[in-house]
């Protein structure tokens, strides 16, 4: 999946722990871990909105597109 979730950087900047953020956003720590480790296949707008609100950032600060390298 060429979409990467850069949550660690934002969480470090805002000095927020994973457990605290999961509680504030209203998702389980297991789901936050799925998101942080780029295992998620989809993110709900409601989750993205809550993350942006709690981390005081824009969706673009959390999501990054890195094109996949193809062997030719």
């Amino acid at each position, binding site marked *: 999946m060429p979409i990467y979730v850069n949550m660690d950087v934002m969480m470090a900047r805002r000095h927020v722990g994973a457990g605290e953020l999961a509680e504030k956003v209203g998702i389980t720590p297991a*789901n*936050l871990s*799925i998101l942080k480790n780029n*295992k*998620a*296949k*989809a993110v709900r707008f409601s989750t993205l909105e809550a993350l942006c609100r709690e981390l005081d950032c824009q969706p673009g600060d959390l999501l990054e597109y890195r094109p996949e390298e193809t062997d030719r």
Partner: protein
Amino acid sequence: MPNPTPSRSGRDKSIALSQFSTLCMGIICLIMVGCGPQLVGWALRDYTGSAALALLRGGLLGLGYLCAALAFATLYNLYRFLGRVQSGAVFVPANVTALWRISWCCAGAAFLCTPAGLLLRLPFVFSLGLCAGFMALIVRVIMNAFRQAVEMKDELDLTV
């Protein structure tokens, strides 16, 4: 107006009944295997005086044993499938595999019975082969639906 979706306990009872029926079918199959020669004799009671009767009897008995093996494999997979459904694991890859095996067992029975029915000139064996082929087709359609559902569930599980 009655509720079309059964309650949890009703569903459990239905699955338990299906499992019980599967076990009963296994026992019936076992009895049929044990009484194979007698059953063949009963099925061929109208075929008298034919020189090829011994060959016909042997062929039908062998076919019956081969189909019994497929039936046991089908019932075993069905029983395991129902067990997983009862424990709440419905859309899992193991169920897709079970349906895949069941469909191949039915297809195997169709491949055996249809030509054998024609070759041995036994209409009921031929009909059985056609029914098995039809069943294989139905199970395959259900298997494909299950495969799609497993993929959708995987995606849903990873949606945050």
